[in-house]
């Protein structure tokens, strides 16, 4: 599990339902789907074609990493998973079920904000303010 994902889960668990649009269980399920199906292309670092493509597409106006995006809605995520784009193929329901897609969409549509909260929480824990 990546640091960002841990930060997300910590934020989801500690900040409670009032600031989380969905539960920690669904977050964990969505994260598992992301790790199984998405991270090979949309992970961090070189050798990730999806991340590389989005970096070129957005030229820094948006994060290239999906887990850092704060503008992804569940509908957008579902659209791309079921329709694909460019060399990203659609995913069949035997690969990502509708229930798994719900979890993934919930996870990614909150991951960026949760990572931000997690970052703030980590910084606060180190006495460095919320920066």
């Amino acid at each position, binding site marked *: 599990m990546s640091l960002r994902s841990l930060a997300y889960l910590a934020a989801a668990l500690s900040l409670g339902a009032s600031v989380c649009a969905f539960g920690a269980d669904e977050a964990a399920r969505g994260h598992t789907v992301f790790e199984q199906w998405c991270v*090979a*292309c949309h992970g961090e670092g070189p*050798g*990730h*074609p999806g991340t590389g493509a989005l970096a070129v597409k957005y030229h820094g106006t948006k994060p290239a990493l999906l887990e850092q995006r704060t503008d992804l809605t569940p509908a957008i995520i579902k659209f791309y998973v079921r329709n694909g784009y460019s060399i990203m*193929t659609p995913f*069949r329901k035997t*690969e990502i079920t509708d229930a798994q897609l719900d979890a993934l969409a919930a996870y990614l549509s909150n991951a960026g904000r949760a990572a931000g909260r997690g970052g703030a929480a980590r910084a606060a824990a180190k006495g460095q303010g919320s920066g």
Partner: protein
Amino acid sequence: MKVPPGVDAGQFAQAIAQFKQIVGEEWVFTEDADVALYRDAYSILWGTPEERLASAAVCPQSTEEVQRVVRIANTYRIPIYPISCGRNLGYGGSAPNYSGSVVLDLKRMNRILSVDEARAHVLVEPGVSYFDLYRHFQEHNVRLVIDTPDPGWGSLIGNALDHGGGYLQAPYRNHFDSHCGMEVVLPNGELLRTGMGALPGAQSWQDYKFGVGPWIDGIFSQSNFGVVTKMGFWVMPMPDAFFSGTVFAYRRDDLSAMVEEMNYAQYSDISNGMPFLASPLYGGSTLVPRDQRVVDYLATQPGGDVSDEQLQAFGKANRIPYWSVILKFYGAERALRESWEYCKQKFAAKVPGVTFQDGTMWKFPLREQDIPHIHKPEFGVPSLDMFVRGARTPAHPQPDWGHIWFSPIIPRTGEAIFEANRVITQILTDYDLTDSYRRVKFSVPSAYWSHSFVLIYGFAVTRVPEKDRKTVEGIKMLISECAKHGWGEYRAAPALQETVVNAYSFNNHALLHFNETLKDAIDPNGILSAGRYGIWPKHLRNKT
């Protein structure tokens, strides 16, 4: 609901209802949006009347369910098309050859049935991907190394059945060769096990390939004679270390000698990894790009190109090699260094002026921090890194919609490389085709298969019908012209399979006629994967 051609709508509805009883309602897909997920996303025929489309999909979870589905299909004469993971992109995907077929999606059959580290083999179902097996090995600390193709999301079984390959030692990187034992559901629903698996209570199904009598496993690859539901594979034991060394040669005429020494090193098992031939001057290989100084130099030349002689002179002046061979070694560290020293002596004695460069000595098991620095498949680590070719990049701002491969087998000689490039480059020029994976004219072949070269060209799928139609025309010309020179393809996408198979025409297509005879005997109703690799059932033969 779409209905397969030649099937009565009422009968199809009955079959669908029975499929639902077998696999569960939620695992039969007939709605347009769900069936659309079975389109071949990399189809060169995308959006045209010729695109191959499914009518429905059925997704069993066990061999027994596959048997029952196949029997129903036989009863109602429903064409079905099994897929494993459906990720044979560039060579197929998840769409059938014959439009209107019901896809038999085996992805839910994803069990790793056995892993025997001491005997170095596994037994898996069709839905198991290279990623799945890798995760299993990691979680259970299994000291075996998977031979994975560049994209790791495909099925071990599907890839082997379509003659895919990887990067490890020769016995493993030919994935069909590395299999040991199959379980097959025949078109009548009968269950068959091959090799030792035919012996009830067999103790060595994954240890000995042949059993007794004719070895029939081959007929279930690139064919339509059965649904493979289990397959065993031999897997490489984890070595202590991996080492590579590179040999550089500086004259165009050195190629034949370089290939001969490369072959010797591999055939005599001194270098036991996959040798990798490249050309820093030409570019033309996937893993070794053209030297940037050459790129810059050519950009200043009229037409962006120079003659081979000028290129060699530029290389000589700048110490840029014409050719390189990377030799790879798996085993004990001391032995690897000794083997590399021996290879250096052999090359130096054969090719004047060669130079050498040592690679890194990598230790197994790899550390997490090693992985970003390696070509992952050479270490048994699945990835999707190769999709960077075709994706949006700074050098390729308008991304592709996939690719289609053209992959002729040629002899393992320098002469064959030059001759094939001469023939193929002319056709690429005539049809304005560019190999979208190298983007240079000269193509250096790969040595996946132990005794041949394969030239691999990837052509972009644009989803602009006129452009893609021209690509198909060009590839078909390549297939027919290569056939005139004795070069045939090892694998092809459905849009090209008939053209490829028709080129294998020795003695008035005796091989195809034999396969058709088998088809009629094994699958008399012609329900299974009609048209796959040019094998049509009797009722569709010569009509498509």
